[in-house]
């Protein structure tokens, strides 16, 4: 319990800092933020209105607290281009991106785990060498490049899948997964390589432990040793990295959603930046960063639940 309490306090501190940095983004704008926020339209009237609206003359801590209060109650301001409230836009787009992220994580793991298990079982064997080499090459392929190649091969040359467009998951789950297949694959490729390598090295280390030799000596079948004895203790760093990789995947999604024309969080963010529309960018950054912190908090908790050594650290000490 001490562990949980400690983690919760950390979580609150990190969340406060992260929200503060997101809030400060506006001050990065060169010159007077109010002028920039009007996006060139509306003239002096708009500028004055923004100044009072954001109360830019107040000291920063006061503005931060007010901004945070608004954000918590669902008011992240509105777009300067179409006046759509940021919160409303985000609620439409977040589910799309979450589907994409989970889909690509799933895709990466479903390939990486069996491959890692097989490679570690015969470390140095043909399968190990080939998969390690191929995946090392895959790591050097940026997701946007892979996306382009996949579009070239599938929709353009073979006529499979659509190059753009997205079907809502609640409308038709199967079609939705089909429409996200190529985007998810573009994101998953590099993660696949990371997961496979990580699981492989951890497994090789675990397989040298005494209790594995013991299990072998008892005459346990190798498959059972691998799955029942070696896999769980070797999967801890994998779990941490899966959590951390949400960050990289979100970064990838910023670009991938543009290429495939998916109306998710990434496209919203980039479109807003390109349109010099800063309030939505701030809202999106806030939501993504907070989501990322929460995911990693959840991973830490999961980690503790799986590995008693962490939970009982105090008792042991």
């Amino acid at each position: 319990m001490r562990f949980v309490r400690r983690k919760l306090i950390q979580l609150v501190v990190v969340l406060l800092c992260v929200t503060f940095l997101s809030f400060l983004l506006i001050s990065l704008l060169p010159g007077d933020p109010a002028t920039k926020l009007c996006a060139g339209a509306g003239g002096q009237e708009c500028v004055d209105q923004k100044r009072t609206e954001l109360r830019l003359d107040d000291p920063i801590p006061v503005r931060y607290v007010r901004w945070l209060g608004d954000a918590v109650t669902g008011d992240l301001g509105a777009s300067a281009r179409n006046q759509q409230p940021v919160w409303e836009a985000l609620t439409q787009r977040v589910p799309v991106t979450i589907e994409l992220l989970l889909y690509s994580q799933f895709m990466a793991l479903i390939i990486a785990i069996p491959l890692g298990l097989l490679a570690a079982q015969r470390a140095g064997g043909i399968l190990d060498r080939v998969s390690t080499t191929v995946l090392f090459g895959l790591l050097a392929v940026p997701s946007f490049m892979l996306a382009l190649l996949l579009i070239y091969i599938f929709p353009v040359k073979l006529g499979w899948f659509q190059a753009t467009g997205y079907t809502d998951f609640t409308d038709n789950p199967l079609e939705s997964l089909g429409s996200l297949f190529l985007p998810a694959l573009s994101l998953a490729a590099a993660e696949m390589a990371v997961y496979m390598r990580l699981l492989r090295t951890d497994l090789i280390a675990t397989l040298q432990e005494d209790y594995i030799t013991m299990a072998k000596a008892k005459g346990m079948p190798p498959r059972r040793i691998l799955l029942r004895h070696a896999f769980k203790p070797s999967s801890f760093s994998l779990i941490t990295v899966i959590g951390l990789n949400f960050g990289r995947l979100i970064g990838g999604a910023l670009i991938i959603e543009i290429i495939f024309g998916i109306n998710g969080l990434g496209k919203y963010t980039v479109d807003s930046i390109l349109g010099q529309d800063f309030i939505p960018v701030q809202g999106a950054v806030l939501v993504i960063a907070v989501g990322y912190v929460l995911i990693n908090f959840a991973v830490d908790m999961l980690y503790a639940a799986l590995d008693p050594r962490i939970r009982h650290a105090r008792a042991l000490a």
Partner: protein
Amino acid sequence: MPAPSHDPVHGAVPGSGSVFAESGDFATEISDIADGDALGLAELHELDPDQVASPRAKRRLGLAFWIASGWFALVALAALLAPILPIDDPNKTVARPRLAPSSAHWFGTDALGRDVFSRTIWGGRISLVVGIGSILLGVLIGGAIGLLAGHYRGKVETILMGFCDVLLSFPALLLALAIVGFRDNRDVSTIVLAIGVVSIAPVARLVRANTMIYSQREFVTAARSLGASNARIMLREVLPNVVFPVLSFSVIAVAVAIVAEGGLAFIGLSVPPPTATWGGMISDGRNFLADAPWISLAPCFILFLTVLALNLAGDRLREFFDIREGAL
């Protein structure tokens, strides 16, 4: 920035780092293990049966390393010498648009009739300047933070590493994108700054972890008992040992930074056109994939080879410098 793409053990764990670091605390140690450094989780890589069998193997860099370095040197040289190389002006129409590769135009011409080969070389200038510049920035600032935190521990460490934890709480590319997006001018220095800021925290973590290891070694104790100042211990005793892991990390980090710049350029948020950038060229060609694929594929291929070369070289360097007691 991005933890080295294929060595996630070195990645950081937001929220589990050192906001409340107190020495001797098990929970902190666990998060250090998650960082992969304090207890040296990274050497799990060394348990490769090949290498267990022949410990000498890793004392050589190997052919692959030299081929990779050779390729990188070639790209760097071409980029450096671009203004005096006998190639076409990258921003001028020199032939009919979308001409297939030929002896006159090695990589063909793009939609505006510009020479793709020449643009690829000039694009390399941006990629390399951003890649190397941003990581240099990250290493200088992150290195200083890590050295101070690892040497002084206590409050200094809590504050500095807390700052890094917060930076790491943002997805890397999002933070870079936000910095670029909120700035007006998108010249090279803005891009270097954006990617550089993102690379501070991972370097700081790596340097801190290594500093902590070396600070406990006998030669540091000896220097301290001889009356060496903190600054001297950090710079003369610890720093020379920390340089090597940072070097191999940086090589891979440069690859990650080049990819990040490519991604920003691809969505139109790097140095604006007509300046050639690899990401921008790949994006320009994507509407002509069916009839003029070379416009995209040529820079794609060069970008891939360069990133692969850096990954490979960095990976070999990491193994090379990873001197453990057993190997001594």
